[in-house]
């Protein structure tokens, strides 16, 4: 079990450029969550998928952020026209719950995005 895999681990973009972050959940997990972590704001929820379907994107900045899960083995978070305030560690987590057993989320190592 390799755990949740996130690539790249570090990404530096210039202001206005696009950034795409990748997440591979733990095999067999049915839910994938995206969070971001900053010193000021702490851990903030962005969006999540269950069985590849988008369920809750209430934390997503609407204009420039989008997320997809085209298959059960990966999800992407895309940020268009990146701004310095987008600089953060973006965390992907996955969980499985077959109706009663496990609800905890397992986190990947994160992608540190720096927007210059």
């Amino acid at each position: 079990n390799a755990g949740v895999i996130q690539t790249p681990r570090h990404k530096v973009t210039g202001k206005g450029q696009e950034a795409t972050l990748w997440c591979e959940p733990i095999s067999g997990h049915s839910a994938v969550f995206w969070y971001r972590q900053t010193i000021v704001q702490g851990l903030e929820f962005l969006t999540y998928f269950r069985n590849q379907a988008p369920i809750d994107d209430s934390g997503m900045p609407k204009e420039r952020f989008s997320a997809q899960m085209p298959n059960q083995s990966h999800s992407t978070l895309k940020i268009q026209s990146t701004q310095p305030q987008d600089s953060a560690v973006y965390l992907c987590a996955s969980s499985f719950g077959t109706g009663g057993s496990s609800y905890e989320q397992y986190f990947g190592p994160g992608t540190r995005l720096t927007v210059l």
Partner: protein
Amino acid sequence: AQSVDQPDAHVTLSEGASLELRCSYSYSAAPYLFWYVQYPGQSLQFLLKYITGDTVVKGTKGFEAEFRKSNSSFNLKKSPAHWSDSAKYFCALGASSFSKLVFGQGTSLSVVP
């Protein structure tokens, strides 16, 4: 609305002492409660959870937590503390089995020799 409060930003204690990190939550329905630990430069690691049943739950690394509905708390405990427990600890609240987690601001724990 859901919220989590960890009132102590920093806690310092001596190795061998007992540790208790405080967490309170606000939620109108039955909560799903979690503790995670983050070591410097690393991601979040799951420690333990309360879903239902016994109000004292045990987790990894010798930690346990007690759920108290009466005062909406879910404090993390360990005795004795070890220097390797130095890390940042996050309390989190979920509304259901598959839902986002709302995190507290975290408590940075330093265990000194």
